[in-house]
């Protein structure tokens, strides 16, 4: 798999490190390895983590606090009716292969993503686009079918980064973007190496290069970090070790927010979960603090609806489903299950699900509900629970940002079908007024919380362990990205 171009750049890194007295590279550990390197044709978060903002950039981008800021578009104008966006592109931007970036690349990218042969995993982001035109080299006009409040937000996703027709053929193994780092080498199963792009249009990166090392087993992650084989571990998989790293002066522990609402999903069309009282009983039977404590070692924020607590529009609705086993029993009796019932609890691989599942099963047993656990791989989970609706309960963290809209999709795996909610979300989609949007979001949170669609557990925490001398790793995870453009060593 050693490609000639790769080999050459690999050599130059080796030389660079040999000459600099002090290592100016950083090695970042991650749990998952990307399957390939095209962010625009797969759902795998690992692809974005390595490449987003480092190698590929979009017209807009997420900054570390989750706000949307200009990327390759330095400015834009929106028509009064909200359907025409005119973007002005940055000047002097080139791709890593030397070809220049201009409006035709934007047209190519967006047409490819929304075309009939598109394999973009988030094709829905582009569904509202009616047309994309290059007016001149630096101006692009995007016309929408109808106004869309979240359009600039959508363009900031990793699935909307700009790619070039010249390099699209080999993008899966040799990604060519416009970012502050160039792709150098991929040792499959082990690591991906990036080197600084010295021709970068913006502030050049402080690091000479970076290596992402893929370490899936938590023990190995612990060992690699302790032995300082990696300089940072992004998304450290075992929260139980964090106290130990925190106590060690060599390391800093970053605990931030993610967009991951972790829920105990219930199959709303499957008896007895079609009965709201039963779902309410389940919600009251669950002690969130025991789950956060036991499964996440204290890392995680309780939630009472499907919404991220750090979002300004958040309403605290945890009171709707406060831990109250007696009330749960009473509700079960009222629903016609005085002796409880049996159901299935299907758990995907992440430890929040596996550990949380054991705790939840024990808590449900205390009110008379027998939940039979089966541990599934993701592929099985997708087949059985997500596609086949063949489950009673399951635990999943929904990591897409602002995804409360999934409750407006009756075919979605928890099969919640509420016309009022669907209408509300449809109105929200086209609403442009920020205050109205906030109000609508708050109403949406309340509806699904009071309908007890699912039992809302906690907001997944983003926990990273970083060498104390390495600065600039994002604490929060507004999107799946390990943005290294601002990372540097301090002595």
């Amino acid at each position: 798999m050693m490609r000639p171009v790769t080999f050459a750049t690999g050599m130059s890194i080796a030389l660079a490190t040999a000459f600099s007295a002090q290592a100016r590279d950083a090695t970042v550990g991650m749990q998952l390895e990307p399957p390939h390197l095209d962010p625009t044709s797969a759902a795998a978060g690992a692809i974005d983590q390595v490449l987003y903002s480092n190698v590929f950039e979009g017209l807009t981008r997420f900054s570390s606090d989750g706000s949307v800021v200009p990327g390759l578009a330095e400015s834009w104008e929106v028509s009064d009716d909200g359907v025409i966006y005119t973007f002005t592109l940055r000047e002097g931007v080139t791709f890593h292969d030397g070809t220049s970036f201009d409006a035709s690349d934007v047209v190519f990218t967006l047409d490819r993503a929304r075309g009939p042969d598109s394999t973009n995993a988030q094709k829905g982001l582009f569904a509202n686009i009616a047309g994309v035109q290059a007016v001149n080299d630096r101006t692009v006009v995007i016309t929408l079918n109808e106004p869309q409040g979240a359009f600039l937000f959508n363009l900031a996703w990793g699935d909307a980064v700009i790619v070039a027709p010249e390099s699209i053929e080999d993008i899966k193994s040799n990604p060519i973007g416009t970012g502050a780092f160039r792709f150098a080498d991929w040792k499959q199963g082990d690591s991906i190496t990036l080197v600084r792009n010295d021709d970068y249009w913006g502030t050049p990166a402080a690091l000479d290069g970076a290596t992402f090392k893929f370490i899936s087993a938590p023990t190995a992650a612990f060992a690699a970090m302790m032995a300082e084989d990696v300089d940072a571990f992004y998304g450290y998989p075992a929260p139980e070790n964090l106290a130990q790293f925190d106590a060690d002066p060599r390391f800093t522990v970053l605990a931030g927010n993610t967009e991951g609402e972790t829920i105990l999903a219930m199959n709303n069309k499957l008896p007895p979960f079609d009965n709201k009282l039963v779902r309410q009983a389940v919600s009251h039977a669950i002690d969130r603090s025991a789950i956060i404590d036991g499964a996440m070692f204290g890392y995680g924020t309780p939630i009472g609806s499907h919404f991220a607590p750090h979002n300004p529009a958040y309403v605290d609705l945890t009171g709707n489903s406060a831990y109250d086993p007696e009330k749960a029993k009473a509700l079960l009796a009222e629903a016609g299950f005085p002796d409880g019932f049996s159901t299935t609890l299907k758990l995907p691989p992440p430890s929040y699900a596996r550990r949380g599942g054991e705790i939840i099963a024990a808590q449900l047993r205390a009110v008379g509900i027998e939940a039979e656990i089966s541990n599934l791989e993701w592929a099985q989970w997708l087949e059985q629970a997500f596609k086949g609706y063949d489950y009673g309960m399951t635990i999943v963290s929904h990591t897409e940002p602002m995804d409360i809209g999934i409750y407006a999709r009756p075919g979605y795996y928890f099969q919640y079908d509420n016309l009022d909610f669907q209408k509300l979300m449809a109105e929200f989609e086209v609403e442009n007024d920020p205050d109205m949007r906030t109000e609508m979001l708050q109403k949406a949170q309340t509806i699904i919380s009071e309908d007890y669609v699912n039992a809302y557990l906690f907001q997944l925490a983003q926990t990273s362990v970083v060498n104390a001398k390495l600065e600039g790793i994002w604490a929060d995870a507004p999107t799946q990205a390990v943005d290294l453009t601002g990372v540097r060593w301090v002595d």
Partner: protein
Amino acid sequence: MRNLILGFALTALFLIGAALSFLWTPYDHTVLEVTNKLKPPTLAHPFGTDQLGRDILSMIMVGARTSIAVAIVAVGIGIGLGVPLGLAAAASRGSWIDEVIMRGNDLIFAFPSLLIAIMITAVFGPSAVNAIIAIGIFNIPVFARVTRGAALSIWQQDYILAARVAGKGTMRISVEHILPNIANLLIVQGTIQFSLGILAEAALSYVGLGAQPPVPSWGRMLADSQTLFMIAPHITLFPGCAIVLTVLGLNLAGDGLRDLLDPRIRRAGL
């Protein structure tokens, strides 16, 4: 003799613990007490508590049942099918029967066992029964090959020739003369496979393919402990030692038994 006694003592301890767990365990292993997690051994919890606040001693006692059940049935499958196949192959050495049996064995054995276990699990879902099947299938060729290998060298002995001259049939010779003469090797292999069965069950549950929670399993306890044992070594130490001591006990007992049962070897002290 010392080996035998030590082996029997360890094995008995393991069997008694498993049997007792049907009637009594210090705590209910399904009850979680998160506020009481990762407590080191105390009088109240002699082996301490795990990451969810469960009593580790109780979990090890119940986990022993899982291990025994899986390993015994798997060895049973291996002996029940493997030994007759091996005897038949040796008796008909060189014929097509031998060829088919041995190639069939090679074929089973050629499949990477853990991967087949993973695939069986992918089809039928993880459970203790699937663990038994996955381990059992791979015991068949082991017993068949060992049986055949040993039986072949017995077939070369003079007294077999004598028995054949005396008109005894192949089947009768296999059962009356071959089987007793390879019994010691089968005992050695049987113990190895039993202990390997316990280890295999541990490995399968370690990767999440064996018995499902809340049924405790030693392998899963080790898997759950692996990020925690720098903070709380007892949670990996006790289940790990339970596996080691049980396997050790079984092996010592098997060795001792062989010495006891087979005077030929003792005579061979030279």
